[in-house]
């Protein structure tokens, strides 16, 4: 009797450890699947132009900066980088500047029309937003905003604004109203209470959602390629030159796109899930 029970537990332990091994293997395989392609891009970026078009490849970077310096000295690249940064910063400012007040209003007040506004924000999700670039190109020509950084930043803000509203809404909802009310009774007016009590508490979250807006703009391809000709962003520059540019230019350009995104995602990783958890609702 006891012997039977003994083998039974032994088998159960065996099954469990086999399961644990499979589980660990799955984690490793998935990590490799995510990381190796990025590693290979950096191998190509850190190789000389000859190595990039050479064959076969070793998969180990030679740390030759030929491709990178070719990329940086290529006509238009530095301007494109600068334009990308300017547009992304403008998008960041616009989407937080317009979105945060809306998020605050949604979290603190009950008023007729609230649901209509929420619907408007949620509706943006059912539409392919980069297509906005087509009609807006016409509008921008009429108003002199065509081929400008601010024009493109406006389109990118439409992409980023719904996130900014929903994220700030939940950030403000996480701060008890009682804190604000306490500040009012101590003589602060609404604005002072907001600035001295609420703002310091939500600032890290606001910064995270601003970074998120930056990345949305930095990564956007279609609208950038449609709307900019002289003031091209990096993505627009790369897309418009894809069929004429040599391989090492493409890979160095790809790496230039990836690096800031990697850094920023690392910086806001704590907020990533809070953000998407909210974007759920």
């Amino acid at each position, binding site marked *: 009797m006891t012997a039977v029970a003994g083998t039974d537990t032994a088998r159960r332990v065996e099954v469990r450890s086999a399961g644990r091994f499979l589980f660990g293997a799955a984690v490793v395989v998935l990590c490799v699947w995510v990381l190796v392609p990025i590693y290979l891009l950096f191998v190509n970026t850190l190789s000389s132009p000859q190595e990039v078009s050479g064959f076969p490849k070793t998969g180990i970077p030679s740390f030759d900066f030929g491709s990178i310096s070719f990329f940086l000295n290529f006509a238009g690249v530095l301007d494109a980088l600068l334009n990308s940064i300017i547009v992304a910063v403008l998008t960041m400012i616009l989407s937080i500047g317009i979105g945060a007040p809306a998020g605050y209003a949604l979290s603190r007040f009950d008023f007729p029309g609230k649901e209509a506004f929420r619907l408007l924000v949620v509706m943006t999700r059912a539409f392919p937003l980069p297509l906005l670039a087509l009609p807006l190109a016409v509008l921008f020509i009429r108003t002199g905003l065509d081929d400008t950084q601010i024009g493109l930043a406006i389109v990118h803000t439409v992409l980023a604004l719904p996130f900014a509203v929903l994220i700030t809404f939940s950030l403000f909802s996480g701060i008890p109203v009682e804190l604000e009310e306490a500040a009012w009774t101590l003589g602060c007016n609404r604005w002072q209470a907001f600035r001295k009590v609420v703002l310091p508490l939500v600032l890290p979250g606001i910064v995270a959602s601003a970074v998120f807006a930056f990345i949305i703009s930095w990564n956007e391809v279609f609208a950038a390629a449609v709307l900019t000709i002289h003031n091209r962003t990096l993505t627009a520059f790369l897309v418009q030159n894809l069929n004429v540019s040599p391989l090492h230019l493409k890979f160095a*350009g790809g790496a230039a796109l990836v690096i800031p995104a990697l850094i920023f*995602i690392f910086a806001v990783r704590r907020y990533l899930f809070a953000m998407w958890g909210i974007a759920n609702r």
Partner: protein
Amino acid sequence: MPNKALPYLLLLPATLFLLVFFVYPFVEIALLAFTGPEGFTLQHIQTMATHWKFRPALGWTLLLAAVVVPIQLALALSMASIVSTLERGRGTILYIFSIPLGLSDLAAGIIWLAIFEQSGFLNSLLVGLGIIDQPILFLGYQSIWVIFLAVVMAEVWRATAIMMVILVAGMGLIPKEYYEAAEVFGAGPWKRFLKITLPLLRPSLQTALILRTLLAFEVFAVVIALGGTTLPVLMGETFQWQFALQNRSVASAYALVILIISVAATLVYLRALRVPKGATL
């Protein structure tokens, strides 16, 4: 300041912004697609529909979404389940899994180009292992199915993370007690997943599927980076008509098609994964 007006003042900038740069432009797309010099016309729709690339573009776009989204759903569910059961190293694994979330589709296309191009890493590996003698031209214009496969790989690699993050956030909302109760009644891990996780995850599944399917219809830069114009997709054709052929009206007609399939997909998901009122957690 009267408290009644404050929420409206705070919402005003965001509302105006969305009306001018989101609602109006989508009306304008329809106007552009249906008007010619003499008012209403179906000319542009006809030009689009009779062009030899329209049917392939529509077909490939739908097929791509039909292949990519289910793979991503399965992979994202596995990744999210893994992350939810992890005890040690959860933060690190989660960060690694979510890295592709911050990468642009153009960067993803370039990354997979490094693997699939003729002198790339896949050929190097195959030759190194002695499977083939000569590097194969994978992405030539005669091998459209290989390009399709490469696009599927790149899309699955890049955009599964966003579904995973939404699902992880959703799983976090499911009360632990449900699982404990199920375990008491003898439900194994697979049964718990089917009977508890999946049904309660419905709101998150809905969000993730809508988001991903729409983004799949908008596929553009990955395809351009890997196959140029060999593999026609709707967004690529929109870009060609707008940018290379300078025909805004036909481009808008294409945009309208993408818009219609996007809204249709959203409605299908909203109905199929309907969340009963009051049943949310």
